[in-house]
């Protein structure tokens, strides 16, 4: 197990190098001039333009830029944003927001999804099942920004149950509504996945055996059927954690949460190489770790799978 973990962790090093270089190149080859873009419709004096290009290494060829970036990275320096703030500092403040939002959404997704899925699965063909199937179809079909604005108006403005936006109310209060909106798509997915998987396993031989040997229904469902039917759900949730952290751009925008999604969106618009690469590096790390966690969890859920 220990060797397996170490090997998997070592794999992430070349993955990180390759992705940072790829992203750096992509940002570099984009046409346009980021400094002039910052100034809008007003020409920038040549002296200022030259100084800013030099400051952000924009006047050097790709490999020199990338080498300078890597050297900085080794010292823990991620470069500076175009407003002069160190990228590491900007990210540190924003990660907390994204992490809280992502985890809140992930917990809601896992909790709501499995509970609804089990509920539907155990009442197959009855109204509970139809309600869950219909409801999840609707939620998956509606774009997230419509859900977001609707949730703000109904639950924030009209009913006043949740803050409308911002992080002032702290965790968890400020993150519940955006978390719910962000989780809605995945929760629908998880519910459907759980339901199908559970139904499949409830028909399996070992469940009939467990029932035949006189185990209580509750124990049969929870310990035998559910545990096995969670495998695909865990796979989905593992990858989903990464996507929730990376894909919260729209939710962060609507709910005014100063997180990573917002920043990477703005940085791409501004051609802010160091920020884009910095965020991507961290996201790649998150994806690698999430995948690793999923693989380890497999072993815990299914004793047939071993890592060595």
């Amino acid at each position, binding site marked *: 197990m220990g060797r397996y973990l170490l090997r998997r962790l070592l794999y992430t090093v070349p993955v990180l190098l390759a992705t940072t270089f790829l992203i750096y190149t992509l940002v570099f080859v984009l046409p*346009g001039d980021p400094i002039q873009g910052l100034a809008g419709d007003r020409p920038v004096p040549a*002296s200022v333009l030259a*100084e800013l290009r030099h400051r952000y290494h924009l006047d050097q060829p790709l490999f020199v830029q990338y080498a300078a970036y890597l050297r900085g990275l080794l010292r823990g320096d991620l470069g500076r944003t175009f407003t002069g703030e160190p990228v590491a500092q900007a990210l540190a403040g924003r990660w907390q927001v994204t992490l809280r939002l992502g985890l809140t959404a992930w917990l809601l997704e896992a909790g709501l999804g499995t509970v609804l899925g089990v509920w539907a699965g155990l009442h197959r063909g009855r109204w509970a099942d139809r309600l869950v199937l219909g409801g999840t179809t609707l939620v998956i079909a509606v774009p997230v920004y419509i859900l977001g604005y609707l949730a703000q108006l109904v639950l924030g403005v009209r009913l006043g*149950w949740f803050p409308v936006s*911002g992080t002032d109310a702290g965790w968890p*209060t400020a993150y519940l509504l955006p978390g719910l909106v962000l989780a809605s798509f995945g929760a629908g997915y998880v519910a459907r996945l759980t339901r199908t998987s559970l139904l499949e396993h409830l028909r399996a031989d070992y469940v009939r055996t467990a029932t035949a040997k006189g185990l209580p229904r509750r124990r049969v469902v929870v310990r035998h059927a559910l545990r096995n039917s969670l495998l695909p759900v865990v796979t989905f949730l593992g990858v989903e954690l990464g996507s929730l952290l990376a894909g919260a751009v729209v939710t962060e925008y609507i709910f*005014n949460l100063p997180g990573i999604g917002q920043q990477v969106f703005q940085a791409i*618009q501004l051609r802010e190489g160091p920020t884009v690469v910095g965020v991507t590096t961290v996201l790649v790390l998150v994806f690698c770790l999430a995948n690793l966690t999923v693989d380890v969890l497999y072993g815990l859920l299914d004793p047939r799978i071993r890592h060595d």
Partner: protein
Amino acid sequence: MLTGRRPERRSERGPGRRLLPRTLLAFALVAFAGASCARTAAEDDRPVPAVPGGAYSVALTEPDHLTPGRTTSSYALQVLQGVFDTPLALDPQDGHPVPLAASSLTSTDQQVWTMTLRQGAVFQNGEPVTAAGFAAAWDAAAYGPSGWDANSYFTQIAGYDDLNPPDGRLPTTRHLSGLQVLDDHTLRVTLKAPFSQFPMLLSFPAFAPLPQAAFTDPDGFDLHPVGNGPFQLDGPWRHNQRIDLKRAASYTGPRPPMADAVHFRIFTSKDTAFTELRAGHVDFVTSVPAARAYEAKRTFGRHYAVRPSGTMDYLGLPIWDPRYANPQLRRAISMAIDRPGITRAIYNEVFTPADSLVGATIPGHRAGACGETCEYRPTEARQLFQQAGGFTGTLALYFANSDPTYLQWMTAVANELRQNLGIRDVALRTMAAADLGPILNHHQATGPYRQNWVADYPSEQNYLAGLLGPGTRSGWSDPAFNALLAQGDAAATAEQSIAHYHQAEDLALQQLPLIPLWNWQDQTAWSGRVGNVQLDPYAAGLRLEQITVRH
């Protein structure tokens, strides 16, 4: 009652109680609720008593910097307007310069100006405001290698060229030779050439003084600027979240604040800011999205106003392309555009059709200066177009994708050019601002482009010189036009200057290198808690010190 920030409604209700049922119900509601819009904006029509005290909040977009010379962002200027006193301010009625940090600014030849400072003024850290503090701030902004945004505002001061060598050499001096500190309260400014609009320029925040701290710790200062204005920062700027201001006890100037504190809440989405205003969590939104104009009018009634602004949109013409060389063709394009139709359909009449090269709020603006050239006359446009010899090839329209409405109005313009002029091949070239800038600056565009102008100070000269003067990206260069501008700059009185600028504008409108499209306006809406809201087009947003609060 000096309670500072209003408690969020959340904390009164006790968070976390009955979480699961509420969350479940919320889920169900969001999933099944129709588009049931709420109308719960804090509407309170009682007049707000004009007594000092209380705190209010303003929705803001994240600024880039908070050091005056480092920024030209209108969001930063809104904050700096409260924290710094510039030498002069602009009168809310007609925009003429009035004393603020300076007690007087005089000149006999429009070239050498003597600025006298108000006695006894101090920065919010106790440091006295001196002529040297002004000179240091201007030097820093004008010094090319500082890389400060407001650098180009100092071009007219003598010695600017030494601080910005064109060939990339490091400057040999850090000081503008045109600045002379005569004593603690007197600064003599020598310009490169006579410039009668200089007093107006001095209302721009980049001309505010800086204390020593701005130079010893520039990064720290940018987060927590110390100014000479009526409000001071209450804790550092929290990026993307908030900027808190409180009354500056040391302030002795002519605009003491009414409220005790102003809280800027930073939003990425203006729609979300407006929703927060409707929920009663924010007191001011100064840029309600145009798409929500009718909703804002209906919901806020007397607490809603349209504030004219000097910002304008133009259609720039690539006069370096021979196909656009004929002014007749340029006029045909202008007359084929239905300005009222577009401002109504896309901007809900919040924007107004332009009838001049300068904004409607600018002193000296002449309604209808553009005449029928800026009117929608499709048949005459067609005639002119044919007289001019028509057009061959693709007519490409260049614009940035920074706002979805640009695509909407450019599409409308493209359709009108097709229908009214019969140009078959009209293409849209939309791209990121970072890509478009170099294309336009290097005159690589082969078609008309979106040109925007935000006025720095309310003078015709700012538009004409900034858009069409020597070295601008329009590529237009007319000796007669430049001479008229120079005469206006050298004139002794405002009236004489304006007369010259009018002649210059007429010349430009005849040649039409730039087609005026519409004037921007800002929609402001506010809660029932705040009063004495006077919006004028000359301030950078709200005049923070005037607002009173029910508390």
